[in-house]
Every structure is written in structure tokens, then in C-alpha cells.
């Protein structure tokens, strides 16, 4: 069983994703990083599901994929609106929510 390898792959992907969310200024890149994080979670779910010989993890992974698709849909729509309004998708220029 390659459980460790799967988990390590998941952890690496997760770290890359977190790095992307924190360090990237481009909204689309941040969205993609979030996808990466979600998929690293999927890998963990699948790895444990295979290990336990049950199909539950696969089902969860499918749900996660569906939710991720919806999330990207909403996210890209927001990016599009952002771009329409200010001709840029740089996150560092967005600080209206500053308290």
C-alpha cells in the first residue's frame, strides 16, 4: 500500500496551494491555488478510502469536486466583475474592505 506516498503527495500539493494563496497577487492564480488545496484533500480522502476498502472516501471526493467546480464558477465570475470595474485583477489593489 502506497499510503505514505499518497499522503506526502497530498501534503506537498496542500503546501503549494497555501503558498499560492498567500503569496500570489493575481486573483486567478489564487483561485487555482485553492483548487490545488481542494484536490490535495481529495487525494487524502481517496488514499484513506482505498486503505479502508470502503467507497465512502470516493463519494466524498466526488462531492468535493462538485463543490470545487461551483466555487470556481463563482470565483471566476467575481474576477470577471473585478476586471470590468477596474481593468485589473491584482489582489493587492483591492483593499476597500480595509477596516
Amino acid at each position, binding site marked *: 500500500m502506497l499510503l505514505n506516498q499518497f499522503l506526502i503527495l497530498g501534503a506537498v500539493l496542500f503546501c503549494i496551494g497555501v503558498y499560492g494563496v*498567500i*503569496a*500570489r*497577487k493575481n486573483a486567478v492564480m*489564487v483561485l487555482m491555488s485553492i483548487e490545488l488545496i481542494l484536490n490535495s484533500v481529495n487525494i487524502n480522502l481517496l488514499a484513506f478510502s482505498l486503505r479502508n476498502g470502503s*467507497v465512502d472516501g*470516493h463519494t466524498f471526493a466526488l462531492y468535493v469536486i462538485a463543490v470545487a467546480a461551483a466555487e470556481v464558477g463563482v470565483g471566476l465570475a467575481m474576477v470577471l466583475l473585478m476586471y470590468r470595474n477596474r481593468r485589473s485583477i491584482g*489582489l*493587492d489593489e483591492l483593499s476597500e474592505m480595509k477596516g
Partner: protein
Amino acid sequence: MLAAATEMTETVLSSGWFLENAWIIPIIPAISFALIIFFGKRMPKKGSEFGVASMLGALVFSAGAAYQWIQRVNGAEEGAYIAPIVKTWTWWQNDGVSLGIGQHVDGLTVTILLVVAFISSLVQIYSLEYLRGDRRYTHFFASLTLFSAGMLNMVVAENMIQLILGWEIMGLCSFMLIGHWWEEGANSRAALKAFFTTRTGDIGLLTGTAVLYFAANERTTKTLGVSGFSIRGLSSWALSGDPSSAAITVGAVALFIAAIGKSGQFPLHTWLPDAMAGPTPVSSLLHSSTMVVAGVFLVARVYPVFFEGLNILGSGANFIVIIGGITIVIAALLAFVQTDIKKVLAYSTVSQLGYMMMGLGAGAWLPAVFHIFTHAFFKACLFLGAGSISHSSSHHSFEMKKDMGGLRKFMPITFTTWIISTLALCGVFPFSGFFSKDEIIDNVGYAGYNVFMIVGLAGAFLTAAYMTRATYLTFFGSPRGASAGEHHEEEGHGAHASHDDHAHDSHDTHGHDAHASHDDHASHGPHESGWLITAPLIILATLALSSGFLNAAPFGHSWENFKKWVEPSAEVINPTGIAYVTGGAGEARISSDEPTEPVVGEEAHSGAPLAAASGEEDHSKEEGHHKSDCGTKTPVDGVCVAPQLNHAPFKWSKAGLSMLIVFAGMLSSWILCVQLYERKNKKLVGLTERNKALGAGYKFLVNKYYLDALYENVIVRSIAHPIARGAYWINQNILDGIVNGAGTSAKTVAGWVYRNVDQKLVDGAVNGSGNAAQAAGGALQPVQSGKVNMYGALLFGSAAIGALILVIINT
């Protein structure tokens, strides 16, 4: 007994590298797709070289596989069961369920692989010239290549899941290709329509696959050791006599609904003519060898399921044959009122697909598959011919009445290839369509479906008539509109200007193929296309002329090579996939339980004369014959993978009758066209406006039987609008009522509370907490920086701290 049987059949079927590795064929274009997407724009030919090279590679592999399959069949005794070459790798597994991905290569697979790779290669070569300078040239080739990859994957599919994968890739790519010029609203609407209509059918595909899986899985695992998704598992299960009639009927009907959607059968054919909005090479590929053939292929692939589920041959009529019959006639009638040459061809395709379905529904499996094979060549040729005309002569217009006519003088090559393909499509002897279409009609009648044989003959008449009309309008008569440009140009400068205006006009209003380089053509009149366009036309026309001879039933048994190579044998086989006995002279014999069998086996193996067989063997021979009736009698042990089908004996009298009908169609249509368009016969011109009955019929046809109106205005509206209205009503009356009522009562209560509780009691507390909150807010203010990245960092930081706490608590 099984041991004896396996021992007996040591006939080693030859195989080869190409056959064993047929799964590589869809991978080649798939890789090429990735290369085009990532590197295409940087290449000197903008990625088209990857596409053409990969299709040629797939063609070489397919040709190798076809050659080796023919070797394999020729090496075995005639009529024997030829085991398909099946390979499978696990793709997904869990909890005892596993999905494989692999290959299932038999005669049908090899045929369609070869056709798809061949047509795709020619279409890509043609596109090099046709789309030169297009603004999305690279993406066009990427989609085209992926499209072929999807079809090839579907064809080699080992199981239903892999088949669905290819099926859906095609659905996606057809959307991208039909909407290639999406700047025009009509094109993107057509793309959406194609996608959604085929998706409607796809519901049937998913349902059918699921139903069949749950019904078949137990038995297929037990007998063959494969899952209920696998093609051969489903086939053997359907013929085992085991399935409950409800499960298999529901499964077959659901799968056929998918085929209706994909193959443009009535009533879901409406997307196909609209799909003409795509570039012409796409139409050609879509309509000849990929996409629309997928539905027919699905039915042919798991034919036993349909055979048993819909009781083909067992009853007077069935779902498939009825749908096929209706499609033939309604599509052919629609072709008469089209002025767009591509739409005539589109309805012609729908009608021809109806023939294939009708053949399959009447047990004429082989003629239907052969019709896929021949139809691919002549239909691709016709579409590419139409593209050649619009590319070089009519300024990207496809309007026959406005912009064509008299082109035979300017485009001799296009004209000749068009005529050959038209004759093949009409089914004139000895062109290829004759050998396939006539076989279908003949076999439908032979199987007892007399009504549908008449429908088929009527369809042949209509086919001949509408193709004559299209040919007349395009190539004969006097040049009109854009095609007449050259003549006017020679007459004087004034005419030249008006010609240019017209060209511009026709481009704006009718131009489907408005691509960047179109202005190049405005400067000169009709002429023959370049060799990149004519070479594929010539190759396809040659095949339209000759491919029928692969299965030329009229010339006797020795000419029926296609039947020998492709038709699966209806022989009882043992579950390891080896025929019990490979018998001579097309007769299946089954071993008895005698221990002395190996001797007989060697005899049978070496092809020794069996006439000297003992009485006991005669008995076993009888038994074998009895058992080989797959589909009519249930095999007790062992499995069947193909039903027993009969073939109509060829008769010149029947062929002669259909020939006469075809010629009658051509002649009557020709006379009518000359009267109507050339002589402007007063009695005929404007007849539809004067005669009410004819006018109504014409209007009915022009509006495509009002099916589009039915789908868009009635069905979509009747479902979407009441929901919206209902939601609005609930919103206005119930929700608002609740909200208003709650509001009024709340207001009264609030008044009291305000005076007594709020002013006195709460204010003190609120002011205190407000002050506290202000202080806390001030302290936390730096966190709310407005920087999204920082929020992300905080989120993950706190999640990490939470995880740490969890770990610490649990250890």
C-alpha cells in the same frame, strides 16, 4: 467437458503487434491535442502539423490492425468464431467494484477505426487550405484532433464506461467546432443546441449503462469474469436467456434514446442541420465518420442487448426500426425545401442514418455496418465538395439558389467527384451506396418488415430526387449571384463594382464561412480549388466508386469479403473465449463428453474431411448445430456473443426494381428542376403560393414540422415559465404576506418594548458593550487590512493552529 473443449481448439488465431496494441490509436491524437494546445502557436504551421501527423499515424496503426485482423480471419476456418483481442487495465477500483480501460478489437472495431482515421486525415489536410488564415486556426486543429481521439477511443472501448468517455469528448468537441465562429450569434446558438440536444439523449446513455450493469454484473462476473460494463459481458448476458425482460428492455430503450440524440434520429434530429454553422470540414467529419455514426456504432456494438431487449426479428415492428423508418422519410422530405447546399446534405445524412438504424432494427447488422463504411466516403466527399464550391466560387455562400449554378464548367474536379458521390448516395449500380443501401432494403424485406421495405424504397426515390435538385441548382443552369461574378467582370467596369458589392452583401447576410482570408477571393470569379482541397476529393470519390466491391453480394459468395471479415459468428463458445470446435464449412460442432475427443479435435483442427465421421459424431454435429442458434435458443453452458442472423439472398429482380425507382426519382426531379428554374414554367413557379394544400405542406416543411417551435416554445416554456410564475406568485402572496404580517405585529410589540425595556434596561448595557466593542475593534483593526492574501494567511494559520491542538489533544 470444458477441459476437453479447450484441448480440442488449439487453432491458434494469428495476431500481431498492431492488433495487440490497438489501444495506442486513440492515444496518438490525444497526445497531439496536448502538443497543439501547449506549443501549437509557436510552431511554423501553427500546430496543424501535429494534427495532420497524428491522424496519419493513427491511420497507419489502424491500417496495420485491419491488415492483421484480415490475416487473423483468413487463418481461421470460415464461419468460425474469431475471438476479439481484449485487453484491460484497472482504472478505478474499490470495494470489489472495478472499472477497466482497454481495448476490444474485432471486425467492427477495425472497420470503424480505419474509416475514422482515414476520413480524419483527409479532412485535416483539406482544412490546411480551407481555414488558412483563420483567427483560431490552432484551436481549430486542436479541437479537430481531440474530436478524432474521442471517436477512436469510443471505437476501441472495452467497456461502457470507456465508451461514454469517448462519447462525451465528442460531445464537447462538437460544441467547440460548431461554434468555431462564435462571434456570430447564430453559430453559438447552433453549438449550444447541438450540445443540449445530444445531452438530452445522453441521459439515456447513463441510465441504460447503469441499468444494464446492475442487471448483468452478477452473471458476467460468474461466467466470463468481467464486470457488467464490459462489451462482451453485456453481449453474452443478453443472449444467455438469463436477463429479466424488464431490465433488458429498459436498458435497450435507454441506450437507444442516446443513439437517437447522437445520431440525429427523429425526434432529436433538429440539432444536425443547425450544426452546419461550423466550418465545412467539421460538417464533413461530423457527418461522415464521427459523432453521428457514434449512435449507430453503439447499437451495433452491443447489438445483442438491443436484439433481445427490443425483440428484433421476433415481432412485427420494434422501436429501432420504427424510428429509423420515420427518420428516413421525414429527413428526405425536408431536404427538398432547403436552399442551403449544406443543409440538403445534412438532411441527407439524417436520412441515411435512418437507413442504418432501420437495418439494425431489422436484424440486418452487416449491411448497416457496411453502410456506415461506404456512407463515410461519399458523404465526406459531398461535404468537402460543397466546401470547395463555397471556398473558390461562391464567396463563402452556401445558398444554391442565390449564389450557385452552372459551376460544372469552372470546377471540373469538384463536379466530377460530386457526381460520383451523388450516384453512390442514390445507390446507383455499381457505386458503393448500391451495395450497402440496397442490401439494407433487401434484408429488411427479407426479415418480414414489408412496410419498412417500402419506406426504404420511398426513401431511395426521395434521395435520388433531392440530390438531383441540389446537383441541378449547383452545377447546371446559369450562374447566379456570386458564381456569376466572373462573367460580369469581363463585361465592364461598372459590373465589376456591382459584383464586388454583391459579394460583400452575400458575405454579410449568408456567409457561414466568414473567415479572415475571404477577401482574397473577392478579386476573381469561380475557379477550381487548390490541390490540398481537390486531392482529398479525388481520393474520396475513388473510394465512393470502389468501396462497395468489398462486399459485392451480386457477384457471388466469394465477393463478400466484408461480411467474412466483420460479421461476428453466432457460435456457442466456452467462457474462456475460444470456440468449442472450429468446424469446417461454416457449421459449428460441439464436442460431446467422450474422452476420445482430442482425436476428433485434431481432425477438425487440421481441416480433415469430416464426411468420414462416425454416427456418434453426426449426433454431436446435430447437437452443435442446434446449440449454435444464438439468440433464438438459450445456450445451456457456454456463451454467445452474437445473435444468429440471416442474410437475404441477392436477386437482380429486387435490385432492378430499386434501380428503377432511383432513376424515376432522378428523372422526375430533373424535369421538374428544368421546368421550374430554367424555363420558369408559369404553371410551376409560385405553385405553392397559389395552391393552398401545397402551400401548407411547403410551410410545414420549411418550418421543419414545427419541431423546433415545439421544443423551444412549448416544452421549454411550459416547464420553465410556470415554475417562474409559480415562484413569483409565492413570493408576492405568501412570502410577502408573512413578511408584512410579521412586520405589523412586530411593530406593535416593538413599541411597547421600546418604551419599557429598551429605554430603561437595555440602553445601559448597550452603551457599555458598545464601548467595549469599540475598544476591541480598534485593537483588531490592523487585521482587517483589506488584503485578500492576508486573510488567506490568517485562515490557514488558524487552521494550522487548530490542527496542532487536535493532534496534541489526541496524543
